[in-house]
């Protein structure tokens, strides 16, 4: 059971990001929490595809080893990282437009003001 330690780390990272989304009041800190959640998801995908004693699945660098790790989760994580970056850029742009309109970054104040 102690050999499956990476799953515990991934779960703790995800739940720390969730704490930042639920309990913070500044909009930028909420955006940072969402970014931490995306990092935990990508790490979970890569941890799933490990073989004990395996090497990198690139034949230029693997050397004479016969055991290689699974390459498919790494390929899917590349796509997920780029999509996460596009989402974060759009989130930060929307926060800039909100700040210009309301004059504040506090979530509870924005809920009370009316345009």
């Amino acid at each position, binding site marked *: 059971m102690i050999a499956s330690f990476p799953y515990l780390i991934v779960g703790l990272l995800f739940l720390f990001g969730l704490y930042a989304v639920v309990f913070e009041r500044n909009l930028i800190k909420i955006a940072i929490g969402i970014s931490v959640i995306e990092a935990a998801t990508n790490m979970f995908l890569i941890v799933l595809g490990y073989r004990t004693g395996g090497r990198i699945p690139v*034949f230029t660098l693997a050397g004479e080893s016969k055991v290689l790790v699974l390459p498919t989760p790494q390929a899917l994580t590349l796509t997920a990282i780029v999509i996460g970056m596009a989402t974060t850029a759009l989130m930060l*742009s929307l926060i800039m437009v909100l700040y210009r309109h309301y004059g504040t970054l506090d979530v509870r104040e924005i809920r009370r003001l009316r345009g």
Partner: protein
Amino acid sequence: MRPLSVIVRTVCNVFAWFMVVYGTYIIVHGHLSPGGGFQGGAVVATFIAFLLVAHGGGKVFGWVRKGVYTALEQTGLLLFIGAGFLGIGTTFFYNVLAKRGGLFGATVPLGPNAGVLNSSGTIALANIAVGLEVVGGLSLILLYMSKASLSSPKEETQGKEAGHDR
């Protein structure tokens, strides 16, 4: 965004073009070592980030035109779709240039080897196309966001910062 000191500006002038060369190396050798289109494109896009941080926003918009990066992004996406239509005789995205002997057509010996640059058909074309698109896209995101943050009016809120922090 005011310009930083003389040391930072000199290092930026020396070091910024090196990023473009390094990123192009990562894009082109995508089928031999870890890397490829997306990673190399992100490295090349730090060229604009260097200029924006070291010289300040006002000067950079006089040096850089947005039309160049728009053209790069659109060319990259159209090239990628074109590389998919090359092998339409069998199926969409069929690797029709591999092991044929022309452009990008050499074969690769089995097992661990040193790497052949001329191999792997449409994969190398798709790498270059996606690299161009990511360079244009990320540079455009940086330019639009910094221009919007410069042109917002700066209000003097003396002592009454309305709810920025907890």
